[in-house]
């Protein structure tokens, strides 16, 4: 039941509808970080869809995603796997109970061209 709530939360926060996925594998066929990952983009989508969230949250794969958005750009069904990954990452972070970022330092570190999601993700990842 807890998993079901977690699943709902991850889906709601990401704005992604995993049911749109037709399991073509184009996301995984395009992901530059594929070989680093234990679970791959299309598996992410499927695991969230079926509520198999625990293994995802414990996997290093979460932090291997570059947030390059290649999968988001190329997915023929508009599923946006990277947003789902980000959402799972957030769940992990929120479970740990603290935000790794001091908001005052943000302006100094960001690069103008960086996508917003990458900024948030990268800071959470490295500012341990």
């Amino acid at each position, binding site marked *: 039941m807890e998993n079901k709530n977690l699943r709902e939360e991850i889906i709601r926060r990401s704005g992604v509808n995993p049911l749109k996925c037709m399991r073509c*594998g*184009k996301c*995984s*066929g*395009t992901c530059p970080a*594929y070989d680093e990952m234990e679970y*791959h983009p299309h598996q992410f989508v499927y695991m969230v869809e079926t509520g198999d969230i625990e293994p995802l949250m414990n996997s290093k794969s979460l932090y291997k995603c570059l947030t390059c958005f290649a999968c988001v750009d190329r997915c023929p069904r508009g599923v946006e796997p990277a947003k789902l990954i980000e959402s799972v990452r957030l769940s992990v972070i929120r479970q740990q109970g603290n935000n790794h970022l001091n908001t005052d330092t943000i302006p100094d570190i960001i690069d103008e061209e960086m996508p917003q999601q990458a900024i948030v993700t990268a800071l959470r990842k490295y500012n341990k």
Partner: protein
Amino acid sequence: MQRIGVFVCWCGSNIAGTVDVQAVAEALKTEPGVVFSTNYQYMCSQAGQDIMKQAIKEHNLTGVVVCSCSPRMHETTFRKTAAAAGLNPYMVEIANIREQCSWVHKDMPTGTEKAIILGKAAIAKVNLNTPLTPGESPVTKRALVIGGGIAGIQTALDIADAGFEVDIVEKKPTIGGKMAQIDKTFPTLDCAACILTPKMVDVAQNEKIRIFSYAEVTDVKGFVGNFTATIKKKARYVKEDVCTGCGICTEKCPQKKVPNEFNLGMDNRRAVYIPFAQAVPKVATIDPDHCTMLKTGKCGVCAKVCTAGAIDYTQKDEFIEENYGAIVVATGYNPISMDKFDEFAYNQSKDVITSLEYERLMNAAGPTAGKLLRPSDGKHPHTIVFVQCVGSRCSACDEKGKEYCSKICCMYTAKHAMLTRDKYPDTDVYVFYIDVRTPGKSFDEFYRRAVEDYGVHYIKGMVGKVMPEGDQLKVRASDLLANKQINIDADLVVLAAAIEPDKSARPLATMLTASMDTNDFFTEAHPKLRPVESPTAGVFLSGACQGPRDIPETVAQAGAAASKVIGLLAKDKLTCNPCVASSNEIMCNGCSSCANVCPYGAITYVEKEFRQPDRTTLVRRVASVNEAVCQGCGCCTVVCPSGAMDLKGFANNQIMSEVDAICK
């Protein structure tokens, strides 16, 4: 006062399950005008119809209300029944107590209450019904076929075979369509030209068929049985009736670098050209965009070498008007543009090609004379990657892809892969698929043969990226069953591009007032029961203009469309729908509101003399409805500010009395 009979149908348990039919019949008995009311298990059955006929005679009924299924289902049935008993068929009204009542309600009391109300409304309407008599219009016994692909060719041949004249209007210089560009055809692998060109010759030789090639339909007026089409014959600068098709001009023209569209730009043609050896009509055409004579007035080589004297640089576009009884749309399809799919590098490398280009590469009359050579360096490719579903089943990419499955690409990709392995066993052939969809006669067997007998590597997964590097293409893809990302160094990548309707289809649909779906495929009158007719009377659909389809399906549909056309042209007169608009001349103020909204162009204005009370005459402009064109949609009645426009059978007072009956 009318004498109305009410017949409440049970439709087995479909209606009787949620509506107390007995109570409905009872309740309606006391409505104004009702002299007879009954219920029966199946009103549409022979026994049910007999009950109605008998009641009409016994009770001298002047009107009938059937409380049953949708009028779309059985209105015609019950009208015929009433007519057989001597009643005007337009004195029959249906109260839909199935689709709009029993099927949407769960409990008996609500269902029954609503059924009674619907019955009352229908009774109120019948009280105001007047007998209507359908008019008649003549039929021009000739057909127009727009598009000369295999669909148009087959339809024209079948119509001509029944003895009617047919004109084919084809926008390209030759008929044949995409099938002429295909090398071999699945699932039997016969050569496309061998089965197509005899049909093209039949068309050319058939006395009943005229071909307007290099021509377009620019305007259509009229209605079923009586269309008038304007055909634009584009100037080809060659006299069609004089040119012998010898081709000498196409060999001598100094303009050699014009991309050859028949081979999809993979080789060049001259400025004067005949698209391919078996073209019909076999007549040269000068391309005004590339001919130096037409552009600068200098050259004239073709006119000098043409012994027949067919070249005419002064030719102009010509417009002709022709009358037809029926029109068949057969405008086919095109592969979508690959420009926006950057990930496949189509615009970066010549060695990334579409499947239709691959057909030309395999074809003996193609740019490589049938040898499989890479477009970039003319070398023989050893590793070939085919990608299915490129731009198909793509709901995310509005402006670049299509949400539907293109239906033909699984099969032609299997064909390409198999033929490649057969002819060049030294090649490695990979096919990336999301699903393999092969639901046709001998189709799955065909695909399995590619895998089992020809060793084609089918990989479940999609190509994510193609990167040109040196003279190779690095293909990155997923292998979902192995749960791996794989990289293949390919020599050639072939994209199974989605297909879409011809760009001219939408303006054509507007011209014909034929409807289209959101993808610009023509819509059929009924997806199951009237698949080859457009909802616009007299307009029929043939081939891939209606949706993706292969040749066997196209030919079957082409024949079906022809038989519908023949059925129409065989009639001497057509009965019109009498439920059409008519304008009350006294009330009409000639404002044009109705003509502006009429989707069928049925309304014109006439000058009429009216006698004034003081005996002088006044000439006024008033609306006049062409009853044969009017489809009875009712738009005009809604916009008429003076209430002059009314619809027979759906008159304003009838509708209002129905509303009153419901609200009472």
